[in-house]
């Protein structure tokens, strides 16, 4: 079942064979830079570096990235727009552009809106460096090194496995309901049908848990679900390139702030 473009991309990415720690270092370094650096030029530079990494060596198709970025963009734009608009009496020192009743728009508001949009887009792109190159299970497996207790990691990776099984069921049921003309029914019946679908998926989830437990018992499952540790070669070149990119961003930020 293929339902998540990010997940598909992560499994297919040539960067999948890189160490999770190295990718996480680059991605989180960019995320923190996106948060801390001034919007101009910091967030723009972070966005460019993240885009270059994702579309370049990580070889994610632009259409996939567009699809992936749409939901966070919607949130960022709505949030930023509401920050831009002032409510109630505007601050004394603000340069107003427009006012209507209690609502107002000022230069300061627009600047905050632009900054927020910059931070948001840069942050989301920086996070996608990790998300589009690293399958969830790799991330969970590598968390063993952080000394997170095994049972928690096992529950998390089983959750990942089971969610595809349940999503397949949920989608199948919703389509079966649509095929039997659920969409045309009155609202009341549509709500009832949604309740049935959720209930059926819940029952299925319990059933699947029981069946998987029996299946695993046969494979020798007693108390832990230990599998091979990930075997990924370290790459000093990758780390060096990441460090250079981050240092470059900060150097340019410093130059701009000093001369701007």
């Amino acid at each position, binding site marked *: 079942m293929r339902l998540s*473009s990010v997940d598909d991309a992560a499994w297919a990415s040539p960067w999948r064979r890189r160490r999770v720690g190295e990718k996480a270092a680059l991605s989180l370094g960019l995320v923190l830079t996106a948060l801390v650096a001034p919007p101009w030029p910091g967030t723009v530079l972070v966005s460019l570096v993240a885009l270059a990494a994702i579309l370049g060596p990580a070889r994610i198709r632009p259409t996939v990235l567009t699809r992936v970025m749409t939901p966070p963009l919607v949130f960022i734009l709505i949030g930023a727009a509401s920050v831009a608009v002032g409510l109630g009496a505007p601050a004394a020192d603000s340069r107003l552009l427009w006012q209507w009743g209690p609502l107002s728009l000022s230069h300061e508001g627009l600047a905050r809106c632009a900054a927020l949009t910059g931070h948001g887009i840069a942050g989301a792109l920086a996070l996608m460096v990790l998300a589009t190159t690293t399958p969830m299970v790799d991330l969970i497996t590598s968390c063993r090194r952080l000394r997170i207790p095994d049972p928690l990691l096992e529950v998390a990776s089983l959750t990942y496995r089971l969610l595809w099984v349940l999503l397949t069921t949920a989608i199948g*049921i919703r389509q*079966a309901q*649509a095929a*039997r*003309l659920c969409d045309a029914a009155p609202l009341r*019946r549509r709500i009832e*049908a949604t309740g*049935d679908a959720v209930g*059926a998926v819940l029952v299925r989830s319990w059933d699947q848990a029981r069946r998987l437990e029996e299946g695993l018992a046969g494979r020798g499952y007693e108390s832990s679900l230990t599998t091979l540790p990930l075997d990924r070669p370290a790459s000093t070149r990758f780390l060096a390139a990441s460090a250079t990119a981050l240092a470059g961003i900060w150097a340019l930020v410093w130059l701009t702030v000093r001369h701007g």
Partner: protein
Amino acid sequence: MAEALVLRATGLHAGYLGQEVLRGAGLELPTGCRLALLGANGSGKTTLLRCLSGAHRPSSGTVEVAGNRLGSGRGALREHRRRVQLVLQDPDDQLFSADVSQDVSFGPMNLGLPPDEVRARVRESLALLGVSHLAERPTHQLSYGERKRVATAGAVAMRPEVLLLDEPTAGLDPAGVHEMLAALERLIAQGTTVVLATHDVDLALAWGEQAAVVLDGTVRQGPVTDILADQTLLAAARLHRPWPLELAARLGLGVAPRHLDDIVTALTTPH
């Protein structure tokens, strides 16, 4: 063809996430014809069924039921779905109500029929599928074969003109297969046109009048004994010749037997 077509698809292109699975597939289904649909896993068989039923919108091409073309409008899709019903392989992805009667009543209720009419349809569909005795049972307690027949009853309760079945006999024991095929006979006798998608070439030969093979995104259709005797086509579709045709060819019988009986007749009748 001279017969009236109940369903016709032409030039279908369709796929998922940018990958094209169907590349110009077409199908002609005469009213009352038993069509066996064959194709390897991943050949696009299920995608074709989903396009025919209106569950998947092809990127180009047309689907018509009894001359009415399936458009993009909501009303047209609704009308199409009422006439063409698809039952998928795994019943667990289709059954959603707490008990059997309720599940089967789902479609008729959505048609806005009065309760008495709905009850009558539920009774009728369960009887046609031979599962009247399960009416009051919770769906998740049924056996796999029972769940498959209940899922089919849910589609039958819509009184479709065309019933598309994806692997209706897969995973059933011989008795279950027999009961499912008997149920299909009752539906066909009532005037429903049935398309049966299967991996089982022997079943396709014994059951079908026509066969269609999905291969490289297109469809090859014809009389079942022609299609299933075409070695080149079958090899390309990763299928093999059904045993009656294979045996007839090996023995040089010069007939196209569809059942064991045909073989016995051919061998015991003096030339």
